[in-house]
């Protein structure tokens, strides 16, 4: 009997030991699993942080749209240098209303833009200057500026800023005004286009009579011009800016697509082929 009692005692002790070992093992496994989960979460966090930093760097480097910070301070030295730059670029070239270049130029490029559109700014500051230098200044090309609302959030603001540009066109300095607008374009959707902003642009526009400009801004013909531009853009199925039409002056204009707004080469080849016709 004592033997049996010992066996039972041994068995119980063995069972207890095994139970304790199993419990210890379970605790260790749970701890190890928690450690693995913690490591994975840390790795995930590191990757997410790296991705966020990389995207911010790219967004800042790309500039334009959301992160541009090129609004020129009123009356600043930079503002004066922008005016000089614009005058150097288009000064001496004939302007009539929304057209830059000689009326006799054999090729016409119609540029549909939204003054608040950063990609239009890119085109105006990168590809357009070389086209002006090479073709407009030499009397081969005339560029017609037309509007299409894309980037501007408020239709009223779009109309106001476009009419302000067209009113400058009444004094044949619309291109100075729009070049200044694009050069000094503010951050998208920041509501920077105010009466003060437009008035400041008018002050910078060389050769503009401010009082007449203010008066012309109430001319209903310009509001109609904005509507006509929108209809023309619509009939060409344009839904983004910048968009272009090109052709022999006085002839049928074709859509100019597959061109990068930041590279003049696409425009140059189209102009060259039209000049040969």
């Amino acid at each position, binding site marked *: 009997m004592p033997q049996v009692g010992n066996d039972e005692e041994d068995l119980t002790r063995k069972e207890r030991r095994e139970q304790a070992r199993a419990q210890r093992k379970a605790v260790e496994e749970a701890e190890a699993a928690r450690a693995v989960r913690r490591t994975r979460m840390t790795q995930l966090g590191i990757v997410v942080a790296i991705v966020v930093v990389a995207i911010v760097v790219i967004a800042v480097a790309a500039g334009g749209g959301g992160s541009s910070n090129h609004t020129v301070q009123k009356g600043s030295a930079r503002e004066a240098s922008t005016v000089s730059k614009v005058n150097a670029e288009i000064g001496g070239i004939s302007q009539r209303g929304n057209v830059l270049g000689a009326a006799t130029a054999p090729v016409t490029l119609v540029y549909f833009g939204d003054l608040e559109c950063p990609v239009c700014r890119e085109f105006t500051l990168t590809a357009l200057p070389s086209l002006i230098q090479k073709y407009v200044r030499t009397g081969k090309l005339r560029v017609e500026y037309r509007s299409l609302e894309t980037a501007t959030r408020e239709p009223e603001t779009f109309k106001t800023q476009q009419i302000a540009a067209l009113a400058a066109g009444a004094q044949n300095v619309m291109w100075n005004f729009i070049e200044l607008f694009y050069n000094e374009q503010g951050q998208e959707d920041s509501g920077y286009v105010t009466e003060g902003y437009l008035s400041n642009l008018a002050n910078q526009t060389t050769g503009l009579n401010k009082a007449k400009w203010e008066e012309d801004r109430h001319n209903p013909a310009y509001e109609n011009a904005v509507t006509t531009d929108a209809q023309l853009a619509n009939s060409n199925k344009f*839904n*983004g800016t910048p968009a272009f039409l090109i052709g022999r002056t006085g002839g049928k204009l074709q859509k100019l697509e597959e061109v990068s707004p930041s590279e003049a080469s696409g425009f140059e080849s189209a102009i060259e082929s039209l000049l040969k016709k």
Partner: protein
Amino acid sequence: MSPAASTHSRNLRIAMIVLTVIGIGLATYLTYVHYAGIKPACTAGESCTKVQTSVYSKVAGVPVALMGLIGYIAILASLLAPQGENSRLATMALTLIGFGFSAYLTYRELFSIHAICEWCVSSAVILTILTCLSTWRFLRGEEAPAPAQSTAEHQAQAPLTPAS
């Protein structure tokens, strides 16, 4: 790993490989369109051309379509590599990078270019799904082995002990 868990993991990996191959197809087409200078097929008018020729279609002079293609190939390589903690981490990291970049490009399409390219949106959708799947797969890790199999393995190893 239990046969059921193994089948589940394999199916998940196959689904991810299929999505990645579709992504490679999309990125290859867009890269070809970019270098061939042709107009991408698009149901939304000129939107795709607008996006493809925008200033945001390149980063540091490299077309984003080509970057996408390289990214998808890297994801595929990580999925075809021997599976383990590191390869799952690589897949998760690559898809997250792709997802972040794709989110940035979609933002540019909507708020800077004001045009939507359906090819780019398709790629963004694929990357979003791939990111969800790869992140879940990475956090889950290897599925726990079934207890029955664990015991069997233990018994199979037992006879070796006396012989050593």
